[in-house]
């Protein structure tokens, strides 16, 4: 539902059904609304059967990459004699995204249940939920839910009394965007600096503590609960356009829009209707100018592209962007695009782990140039320099933070070049004049 608003009639509430319902936070309340039925069902199945159901549902990773979840799970080989781990990535720090926060705040038991199912399906006895340190309320809720679940024997040595061991632990991060990158998260969990690792080896071979590991986003895991109970066909049937994108998706909407919040719609929902109808359109007297549909790491869309988009993995790519994490940032005509992009670049410069030169130097250099242009001291050659730096920042580093910084710069210059040029043409030569103005 469009928390903090009432559900919109065009939403399809599955994961967000209990947002805003304080009762569903407790174990008793959660059981009343059908909680832990999926885990009971899962523990009665063979792990391979669960993986097959998830494969058949077409569920894809909701953290940003969109990798098929069932396939990811099938890389794990239960019974190979090694300890396996499940990591739940709850380090939601992509600017514009705040859906996992609401899942954990309102339905913490849904995630405990999902982690237990996921762990069982991949042959792991331990699941770690890595939550970013700033999420104090979700952390408190998750800690409480885990404690309740242990006390009730739902997880632990003998989960649900069915003779299987499933441990779930909450791990608190300490403020670093990069720890949302899967291998950086594993390093951080191991008590190291959150530097991403070189791949291969992939986590399914050597992940957390060097053991086979699967890492999934909060929303992905929670969707599995519903898939197990209602079947893969039901989930697949919710796709409105491309059959490769199935189920529902939570979109976090923020920026210059009438009703910001979390909205859950079926994959393939028309983006135009979503922005103008479900989320209430622009603020009074203003007009939309641009949309960043999947967190700041994806290409910026102009309104022509956005209004023609169908909201699924393929739909966003067809219209010049990506679904990403589903964090929709709406920018209206009151904003200066150069300033917006400069602030995005500053974010990446701040969050670069500084392992790779292209990223460490590139993000900071691009930020300096963009801020210079925004302040009215840009030079004509700056745009070419920015594009040049961006090219060197793409595809050359251990993780994609560097690429993520280049993406809004390149798409911004391509789609809103005139805004850059206006600022450069009005160049103010004297810094004192600029400070006064």
């Amino acid at each position, binding site marked *: 539902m469009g928390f903090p608003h009432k559900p919109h009639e065009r939403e399809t509430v599955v994961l967000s059904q209990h947002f805003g319902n304080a009762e569903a936070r407790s174990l008793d309340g959660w059981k009343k609304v059908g909680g832990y039925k999926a885990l009971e069902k899962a523990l009665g199945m063979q792990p391979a059967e669960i993986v097959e159901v998830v494969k058949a549902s077409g569920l894809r990773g909701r953290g940003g990459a969109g990798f098929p979840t069932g396939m990811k799970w099938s890389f794990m080989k239960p019974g190979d004699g090694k300890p396996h781990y499940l990591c739940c990535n709850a380090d939601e*720090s992509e600017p514009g995204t*705040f859906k996992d*926060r609401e899942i954990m705040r309102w339905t913490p038991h849904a995630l405990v249940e999902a982690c237990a199912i996921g762990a069982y399906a991949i042959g792991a006895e331990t699941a770690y939920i890595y939550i970013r340190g700033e999420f104090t309320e979700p952390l408190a809720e998750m800690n409480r839910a885990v404690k309740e679940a242990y006390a009730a024997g739902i997880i632990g040595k003998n989960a649900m009394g069915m003779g299987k061991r499933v441990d779930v632990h909450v791990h*608190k991060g*300490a403020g670093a965007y990069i720890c949302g990158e899967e291998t950086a998260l594993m390093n951080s969990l191991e*008590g190291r600096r959150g530097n991403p690792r070189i791949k291969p080896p992939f986590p399914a071979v050597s992940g957390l503590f060097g053991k086979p590991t699967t890492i999934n986003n909060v929303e992905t895991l929670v969707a599995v609960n519903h898939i197990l109970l209602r079947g893969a066909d039901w989930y697949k049937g919710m796709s409105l356009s491309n059959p490769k994108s199935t189920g529902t998706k939570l979109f976090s909407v923020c920026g210059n829009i009438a009703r910001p919040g979390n909205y859950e719609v079926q994959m393939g929902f028309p983006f135009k209707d979503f922005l103008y109808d479900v989320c209430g359109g622009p603020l009074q007297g203003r007009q939309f100018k641009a949309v960043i549909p999947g967190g700041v790491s994806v290409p910026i869309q102009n309104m022509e592209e956005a209004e023609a988009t169908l909201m699924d993995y393929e739909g966003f790519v067809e219209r010049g962007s990506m679904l990403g994490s589903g964090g929709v*940032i709406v920018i209206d005509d009151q904003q200066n695009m150069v300033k917006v992009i400069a602030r995005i670049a500053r*974010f990446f410069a701040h969050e670069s782990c500084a392992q790779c030169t292209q990223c460490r130097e590139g993000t900071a250099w691009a930020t300096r140039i963009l801020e210079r242009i925004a302040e009215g001291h840009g030079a004509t050659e700056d745009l070419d320099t920015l594009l040049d730096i961006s090219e060197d920042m793409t595809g050359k580093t251990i993780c994609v933070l560097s690429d993520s910084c280049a993406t809004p710069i390149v798409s911004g210059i391509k789609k809103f070049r005139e805004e850059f040029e206006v600022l450069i043409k009005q160049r103010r030569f004297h810094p004192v004049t600029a400070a006064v103005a």
Partner: protein
Amino acid sequence: MTHAPAFALSPGGHAPEPHVPVFTGDTRKELDELLTRYPTKMAALLPALWIVQESRGWVSEGSMAEVADLLELTPAYVKGVVTFYYMYHQHPVGKYFIQVCTTSPCGICGAEDVVKSLLKHTTCGELGATSPDGKFTVIEVECLGACGFATPIMVNSEFIESVTADNVPQILERFQ
């Protein structure tokens, strides 16, 4: 002329004080319980540092050495980890540590005005500085993950949403 060795000073320039151990009694028990969750001692490092910060308000070099000792790491390693993460304070901060999100989504919804208003009403004057009465420290933070509720701020561990330049004085009344 003799200088105190540089390493004896904490980054904030405070005179070194004898370290009083953090991990005694209940905090020690908490750490021991944490150690059962992971196959390595090192994995308890971040949670251990959180315990330090919660009980002392910041992570001093003495605490880092204590944690290093308990987890069989070197103090240099622990410091390397502490300095990587933004949320560990390496020097004492005001009684109320205020973090304001100014990342793009909040930035386009007026976060800069919230910062100005906070700096004015807390009398901090500038980002990162502590107010003369020692009550407040205000810093900008990158994305608090509550973009739909712009502008979110964090006062110590309390999350406050939808802050505007105008309702800052009213919010600050609670933190005196």
